[in-house]
């Protein structure tokens, strides 16, 4: 059995055709995990026993030739910020190292209903604060393409698990570019639909107005299929889009819409972007032009504004979202017992939260405090509105926007240390669309001369998931290398 870069379709066909059993499949994946995870460090929690038990149930169904569910029998991984009942949900933090979740995230619930076979939970930057998994309290995740380099972040464990064939697809989440970025650096498809399309209920919150779950996979079809399984109105999330679940996979067509206009923001191709990334992505875009796409250069607000707005908004929300981690009801509680309860909370937090979380909390508390709110938070919200309007103007001229996902390839390990805004710079091309909550996909666009993957992103107006996916699907079928 060859599971290398296997898709959901490949696996389910294999199961139905009885080329292999679900149990053999799980064992095959665990064979890879056991040999590679120690070095790559993609998973921080694994449960082979229950995966095999679940596989046996699938095999029993297949034996009776019963119809299987859309994701049934397909080994998958879950980022560790998604609650899965009865298992640790640590968000890769010391604060929650011993926390066992008593409930399921909506995404988890829906994955299970679709038959997903979860192998384990993947490493991430602690609380998703970062773009390299280097802020994880469980160690960094290495890039399967070159182990001297990071896998990306914050969904780095998810991207490395898929790229190293330790699962078929993985659930990630992004606040700026935490799905697209690691997908780009690990040569995968990484899809994040419109903000609110997939429920945030049960996802350890980072920046509530930005967070969105997403999918990392080996194909566009898999991205669409998994999204369809977990999307749709959730009465537990007041910000979820009030529509029934989507049918992107069913409607997926490998076609370029007639005279589709692709906007290329000149700000995405200036000298802040690595030249090899630029050239490689432009070459792919030119290929799309040859297939009939119309290319239009567009002028967007400089990403530096998005970096500033993103930093202020996300830090504000982080400072408040992390406040529940006081070590009183759950989470890290100091061995030292203090007289003052407020000081006790401060000590629990000091010990349980890493540098990055502490810095972000303090920055957030600062920009929200009286006297600074107007200058920072309020202004940031106003500029956020301008960024959304800027995209609206752009989408009056073009159907989709296309460009590099990341300004560079995966950097070497140790890149975060000494650079408190590494994440913000790394995510400079994903933050604008994240602030506007736009549906985005990163697709593989080749490699640089060191063999490191390069990603290209395609995104459209809110709710344009089908167009984004169809265009990416066309690219995958006709141009992807």
């Amino acid at each position, binding site marked *: 059995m060859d599971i290398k870069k296997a898709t959901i379709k490949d696996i389910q066909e294999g199961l139905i055709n009885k080329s292999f059993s679900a149990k053999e499949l799980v064992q095959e994946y665990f064979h890879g995990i056991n040999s590679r995870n120690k070095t790559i460090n993609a998973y921080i929690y694994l449960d082979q026993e229950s995966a095999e038990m679940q596989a046996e149930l699938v095999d029993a169904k297949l034996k009776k030739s019963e119809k299987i569910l859309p994701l049934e029998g397909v080994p998958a991984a879950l980022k560790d*910020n*998604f*609650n899965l009942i009865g298992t640790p*949900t640590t*968000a890769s933090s010391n604060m*929650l190292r011993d*926390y066992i*979740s*008593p*409930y399921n*995230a909506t995404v988890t619930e829906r994955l299970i209903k679709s038959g997903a076979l979860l192998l384990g939970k993947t490493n991430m930057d602690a609380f998703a604060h970062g773009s390299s998994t280097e802020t994880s309290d469980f160690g960094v995740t290495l890039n399967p393409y070159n182990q001297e380099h990071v896998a990306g972040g914050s969904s780095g464990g998810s991207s490395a698990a898929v790229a190293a064939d330790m699962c078929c697809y993985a659930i990630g989440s992004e606040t700026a570019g935490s799905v697209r970025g690691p997908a780009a650096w690990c040569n995968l498809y990484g899809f994040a639909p419109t903000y609110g399309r997939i429920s*945030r*209920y*049960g*996802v*350890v*919150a980072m*920046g*509530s*107005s930005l967070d969105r779950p997403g999918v990392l996979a080996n194909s566009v079809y898999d991205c669409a299929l998994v999204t369809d399984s977990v999307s749709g109105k959730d*009465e*537990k*999330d*007041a*910000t979820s889009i009030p529509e029934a679940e989507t049918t992107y996979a069913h409607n997926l067509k490998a076609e370029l819409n007639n005279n589709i206009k692709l906007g290329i923001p000149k700000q995405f191709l200036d000298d802040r972007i690595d030249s090899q990334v630029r050239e490689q992505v432009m070459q792919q875009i030119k290929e799309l032009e040859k297939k009939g796409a119309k290319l239009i250069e567009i002028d967007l607000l400089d990403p530096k504004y998005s970096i500033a707005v993103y930093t202020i908004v996300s830090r*504000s*929300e982080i*400072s*408040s979202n*992390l*406040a*529940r*981690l*006081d070590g*009183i*009801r*759950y989470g890290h509680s100091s061995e030292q017992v203090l007289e003052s*309860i*407020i000081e006790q*909370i401060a000590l629990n937090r000091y010990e349980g939260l890493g540098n990055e979380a502490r810095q972000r909390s303090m920055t957030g*508390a600062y920009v*929200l*405090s*009286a006297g600074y*709110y107007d200058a920072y*938070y309020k202004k940031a919200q106003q500029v956020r509105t301008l960024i959304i309007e800027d995209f609206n103007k752009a989408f009056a001229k073009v159907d989709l926007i296309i460009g590099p996902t990341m300004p560079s390839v995966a950097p070497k390990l140790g890149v975060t240390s000494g650079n408190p805004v590494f994440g913000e710079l790394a995510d400079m091309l994903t933050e604008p669309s994240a602030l506007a909550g736009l549906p985005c996909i990163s697709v593989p666009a080749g490699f640089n001369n060191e063999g490191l993957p390069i990603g290209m992103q395609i995104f459209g107006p809110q709710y344009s998931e089908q167009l984004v996916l169809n265009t990416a699907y066309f690219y995958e079928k006709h141009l992807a290398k």
Partner: protein
Amino acid sequence: MNKEFEFVIGLEVHLQVKTESKMFCRCAADYFGQKPNSRVCPVCLGLPGALPVPNALAVKKCLSLCLATNCQINKISKFDRKNYFYPDLPKGYQISQYDLPLGENGFLEFDVDSDSRRVRIRRIHLEEDTGKSMHTNEETLLDFNKSGIPLIEIVTEPDFVDIEEVLAFAKRLRQTVRFLGISNADMEKGQMRYELNMSLRKVGSQKLPQYKVEVKNIGSISVLEKVIKYEFERQADILASGKLPTQETRGLRDLSGKTYSQRIKEDADDYRYFPEPDIPPMHFSDEYLEEIKSTICELPQARKHRYVFDYKLEPDTAEVLITSKVRSDWFEEAIEKIKDTALIKEIAKWLIKDVNAIIKEQKLKLSELKFTPKQFSQLVEMLYQKKLSGTLAKQVLAEMNSTGDEPEAIVNRKGLSIMADETELIKVIKTVFKDNANVVGDTKKNPNAAKFLLGQVMKATKGKADPAESARLIADLLSKE
């Protein structure tokens, strides 16, 4: 009380809203007296990843209070996060409302000694209650059953000029929310709590004092009264000695009204408010607000005034009738279609005195009485038409409450109707005269003697004689002796 100073008082009232479920989750709201932490879920425990979804009924009830107290409604309103750390605040922030409360700039009218007064309401907003800390010598226990109970906060302007106004306002507000079905406002269950903002100034001064003392968590109107009196003396003493009372928050140790310094605050607290990103802003249409308006019943103040003006009831009588909506509605049903204000007065009198006596004695609720308001008014009407004496009416009422029979049926069955035949009555009086010859002789010197004879007549007729008619006949016959 020191005559040199006068009050400047503003009130903040916290009111638990009567709903099936909590404010932001679907946990049952019937927390009072339940086993600790038996009404909790990931949302109201502040577990990682849980999200709030607002309770539409609580919003509706709060809007109805805003409309009933003449507030301007913010048709675009939102929730905000109020950030602070405390062990009974599970999320590290309270979801409240900051700059766009549901209602602003209203007023409530009430009476002090039949004098109509009005206090302005600055704002009314909706928020969630916190959990409860229980301190023992050894430890502090936390119960989160109360966490997330919907809470309305009503803030008045500092308009109160005397203690009677504060108390009358508090009572009228309590009646109003009960009339509207917003809350049971049961003080013993902590459903209505007061926060007093109080300072003193020289009589006649128009300026606001330079300090403000806040007393938190006052659980009843009687304690509120004691606190105001205590604080008046305390602050007046300090001012009289030429000093300024400290700007601070004071607390209560017991129900005596004595306060103690809890926390000195010179600046306003910095709660780092910002818009709650987990809940989209609320938009209220005119139709929706009209719909709520149409459900608002006649309020206690209006009803009281109608009783006084239309039915010519004494203001005190009217006030007693509107103590609760149940009683007031019961009264309304009893007097339905009755135009004679003298009869209405009699019904009110009997309701307050005799029906109340039955209720108190037998520990019943109005709704548990065996007789209906209509039957009750029939009885009072018989009395009013002199078909029954007061003594007989009481007997019939007692019988009505044990059998539920019509008053007329009871009167007929027991032959209780008043002696209509004058010659019959004269016969009885003459017999009484004969049996009490010595008393008859005393009547010229002792005016009480005639009263004694009347008593004997009533006794001899088992209350069937009309007392007024009998008195007239006794006087008549005595003059002929």
